[in-house]
């Protein structure tokens, strides 16, 4: 594991809570408000850490284990992304499957923890979450397949690292389509508009927020951080596809990573302020559209 990769990983882990704040700030500024401070998520994490936990009598150990498993799976997934543009801390041929499987593990743990409470709200959120996951997983794999075909590499460090720059000269159209498709996936997986409104207050309209409705105190802090980390992971993925950073020096790649993450969050904020939330039944269609874009990219590569 190179020193640069380790530093990039630490930067990602520390800077992850910054990203939802930037997205919210962008959205507020564009809609004419001042909005919460950019560091708001850090303040929330600190505040929640000091609160007392309240657990329902219906819950079992699965409720307490859910946030921890989610955090662990996300951190493990982060180990496979080449954040410095060259090589990830952990890499082997076929690790893209491990990346997707770890995200699925986090989702499974969170869904079970939500259903442990025996409340209808969590059941509703869990049901919607797995419905979207049914189309989101194939869409993610379509994007990864396109990257495999474009670069000829089987590891995320290869697909998002140096060979990607060469692939851009050969197949820019396919890679742009893959990048757009990944951005749509980012919006859906991280419960952003147009898939889900993170600022809604009505439980009946929430998806991700309502699965964790009964978590409080330090558990909620872990979940808040995990959501920010998931956003950071997807943002790093999108940024790596659009801007390969293989040729930069050590310090420059860290700065570039940070700048890319901030840019993607700002883009998320722009999209959130420009669009309204879709009807629930249209979100699978949105994912099918993203999948169709990635499919078209694959057809162009195979032709």
């Amino acid at each position, binding site marked *: 594991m190179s020193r640069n990769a380790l530093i990039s990983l630490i930067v990602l882990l520390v800077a992850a809570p910054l990203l939802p704040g930037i997205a919210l700030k962008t959205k507020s500024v564009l809609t004419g408000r001042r909005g919460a401070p950019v560091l708001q998520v850090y303040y929330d994490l600190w505040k929640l850490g000091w609160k007392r936990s309240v657990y329902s009598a219906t819950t079992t150990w699965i409720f307490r284990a859910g946030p921890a498993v989610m955090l662990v799976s996300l951190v493990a997934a982060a180990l496979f992304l080449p954040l410095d543009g060259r090589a990830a801390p952990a890499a082997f041929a076929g690790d893209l499957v491990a990346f997707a499987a770890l995200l699925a593990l986090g989702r499974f743990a969170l869904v079970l923890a939500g259903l442990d409470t025996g409340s209808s709200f969590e059941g509703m959120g869990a049901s919607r979450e797995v419905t979207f996951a049914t189309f989101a997983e194939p869409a993610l794999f379509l994007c990864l397949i396109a990257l495999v075909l474009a670069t000829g590499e089987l590891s995320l460090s290869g697909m998002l690292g140096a060979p990607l720059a060469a692939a851009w000269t050969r197949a*820019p*159209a396919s890679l742009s389509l893959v990048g757009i498709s990944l951005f749509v996936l980012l919006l859906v997986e991280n419960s952003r508009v147009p898939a889900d409104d993170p600022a809604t207050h009505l439980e009946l309209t929430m998806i991700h927020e309502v699965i964790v409705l009964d978590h409080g105190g330090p558990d909620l802090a872990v979940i808040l951080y995990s959501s920010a980390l998931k956003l950071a992971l997807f943002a790093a993925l999108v940024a790596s596809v659009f801007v390969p950073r293989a040729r930069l020096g050590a310090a420059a790649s860290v700065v570039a990573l940070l700048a890319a993450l901030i840019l993607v969050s700002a883009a998320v904020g722009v999209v959130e302020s420009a669009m309204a939330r879709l009807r629930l039944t249209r979100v699978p269609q949105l994912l*099918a559209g993203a999948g*169709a*874009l990635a*499919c078209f990219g694959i*057809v162009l590569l195979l*032709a």
Partner: protein
Amino acid sequence: MHTAPQVALLFIVLMNFAVLGTSRLSTCIRAVAVQGLLLGVLALLLAPRFSLHTGVLALGTIVVKAVTLPWFLAWAIREAAVRREVEPLVGFNASLLLGVLAVALAFAIAARLPLPGMQQELLVPVSLATVITGFIVLTARRKALTQVVGYLVLENGIYLFGLTQTESMPFLLELGVLLDLFVVVFIMGIVVFHINREFDSLDSARLEELTD
């Protein structure tokens, strides 16, 4: 992969997906309008040499396909007060899947067609894909207006295929554009008028009730 005609052709395929995947009729019309605009631009870009004839053709294509017809269709939507395709015969997810399969099929067929070497290798596959997409929209939708949009997409595909003849812009293209205009105005006007009068709605499935 970054010449202007190739980008235009890629956007035409994206517009096909847009027509297949959306239920809002205004979005369908806007997508067909963008397609028409791209077709006119393509006619200009692919012409071997620029002449008055080419310029007039391109301009006419843009005016008809990108301005007139969409405006007319939008008027028809307002008249009939219909905004969405609510229950198509084939669902939107399935239509998108069919559209992707159409693109793959078009590329596979185009690779096997005995065509002489062409400058634009994307032209034939994209035109085939657009024709098939037009067919899908024609057969998979209920509302008469959406079916007209499908017919326009089909015509756009045929127009694209005509562009492969780079020797001269054939008479075919001009006839095609005029045919578009004629067909759309004539048929749609009659159909909209009559359906609206008979049923107070534009659901073409209800044409089945016109039996003895």
